[in-house]
């Protein structure tokens, strides 16, 4: 009985509203590794999947944004713990997708987990750093607090399949937003595994919705969707960027513009991405004598 075992080829699904579902369109596409070898099939999301993902994110927003910052931090930290448990799977997938191995891929996965922990620590510090008590000329106590922007569409970086994804997703969540993520088109598998991590973590369903598919097909629908409050264009295809910004302006979205080339995600982050998806609320509170 020395027959060779038949490999189990996987067909991954989308992660929308806390559940793994096939694309409404029924489509999927083959994902190949850095050396061209077949890895798995990924679901190819349609505009209606994007619409459903936005509905799910909108539904999850009051709960997630209303949770205490401390609680959000705990929930996000738990995600990092689960990522640590899946470290070997991430190593294999990032290695296959990006064609790196050895120490380099280990450092990428470690950096991704550390990045998640770093942002988890920020949840209850954002208000202190970005908020302020404002001196005003009158009998008022005037203060400004950052509040989450709402539903954020994220076009994830195309090259860095895990560290890049974590670097754009974690700050959005830490600030209290809910997210619709379009994973890297050609390297979606680490993102799918991250979705599996999120599904088994304490992050409520709908807070993160992960779509795989053609970024060029999905991004115009997200940019024009009136119920999306902000869009991160980091992974947008270069020829579409201007048009996406113009479309997003049609419904007055907050837009985080794409850098000319994909940044070096291994560099120590700052709070730029936290600041990008918060709104400042200023309160004038009358003071008694």
């Amino acid at each position: 009985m020395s027959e060779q075992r038949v490999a189990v080829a996987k067909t991954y699904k989308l992660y929308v509203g806390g559940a793994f579902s096939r694309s409404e369109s029924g489509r999927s596409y083959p994902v190949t590794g850095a050396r061209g070898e077949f890895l798995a099939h990924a679901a190819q999301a349609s505009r209606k999947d994007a619409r459903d993902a936005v509905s799910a994110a909108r539904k999850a927003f009051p709960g997630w944004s209303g949770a205490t910052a401390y609680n959000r931090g705990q929930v996000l930290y738990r995600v990092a713990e689960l990522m640590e448990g899946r470290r070997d799977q991430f190593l294999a997938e990032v290695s296959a997708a990006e064609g790196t191995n050895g120490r380099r891929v280990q450092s990428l996965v470690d950096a991704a987990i550390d990045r998640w922990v770093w942002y988890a620590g920020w949840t209850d510090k954002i208000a202190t750093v970005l908020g302020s008590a404002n001196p005003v000329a009158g009998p008022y106590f005037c203060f400004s607090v950052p509040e989450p922007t709402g539903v954020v569409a994220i076009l994830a970086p195309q090259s860095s399949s895990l560290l890049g994804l974590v670097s754009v997703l974690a700050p959005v969540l830490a600030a209290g937003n809910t997210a619709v993520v379009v994973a890297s088109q050609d390297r979606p598998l680490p993102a799918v595994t991250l979705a599996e991590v999120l599904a088994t973590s304490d992050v409520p369903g709908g807070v993160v919705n992960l779509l795989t598919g053609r970024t060029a097909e999905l991004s115009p629908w997200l940019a024009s969707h009136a119920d999306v409050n902000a869009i991160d264009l980091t992974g947008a295809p270069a020829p579409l960027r201007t048009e996406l910004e113009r479309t997003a302006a049609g419904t007055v979205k907050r837009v985080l513009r794409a850098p000319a080339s994909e940044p070096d995600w291994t560099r120590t982050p700052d709070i730029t991405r936290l600041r990008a998806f918060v709104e400042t609320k200023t309160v004038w509170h009358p003071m008694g004598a």
Partner: protein
Amino acid sequence: MAALSTGTAAGERETPAPRPSPLPPDLADATRDESTLRRFLHGLPGVDAVGLEQRAAALATRSIKKAAKLWAIDTAIGMVDLTTLEGADTPGKVRALAAKARRPDPARPEVPSVAAVCVYPDLVDTAVAELRGTGIGVASVATAFPSGRSGLRVKVADTELAVEAGASEVDMVIDRGAFLSGRYGRVFDEIVTIRRACRGAHLKVILETGELATYDNVRRASWLALLAGADFVKTSTGKVSPAATLPVTHVMLQAVRDWYDRTGTPRGVKPAGGIRTTKDAIRYLVAVHEVAGPRWLSPKLFRFGASSLLNDLLMQRRTQLSGHYSGPDYVAVD
């Protein structure tokens, strides 16, 4: 059907308008007394539950797109009975609802107004004042809505309160306890009595199908209501789950179609409760067209009892016209 009445105060009130066309002999015979009524209702053919659900599910898969979808959305908007039935309702809320009923989407004045506004009896005068001259009906629930657990005197007084305040439509609930224990004559008399108290206002009879347990009972209750003079049969109060479902609406549509075939008078159907999305509403319209017929695709004969449905219809309408998805920030909160 005074033969069945037991001489209540309301039973002595005069009827302003007799039913326009007399019933054919077999139907008239069914309403002679309690036992003929029972024999008639139990003689109705049983509902094939599996076949019914399968047909309802099959019709629900029909794809309605583009121009047909836009037509369906506008038709559905015109069929909405915009409803607020909360303990916390205020005259201000009813005024806001009336404004929305007149012009559902202020940015697009071509959107049709809804069919009616549906409120509790004590708020009817507010709604009437707001909607005078618009052609939009004012419907009021009555007869100890939603449970129907009260005496006939109270139910008649409840109805009169609504009608005197100017309600053009009355949504009454049947006594489900009496119906389920087989006292059909009592339910029949009650509907007849309320029909008189309506003095010409449209009468919708709420069967509360979620409490009737079987499709056979839904069919019997529909016929009972039609025999007693209901202008509309309505699925639910919206306070009981399950509320309106497609199969139940199919049974009721079959009843009004059969009623039309036998008497020549068209009667309406109103599913209410649980219809929240445009997709749901379009499925109901398909059922109306296929089961009852195109004649029923009119607010005169088909209504949606809903509150949140209207916003979804408006968002879908905007999506169809603008080419991008709309959001709840762009429609009125109610």
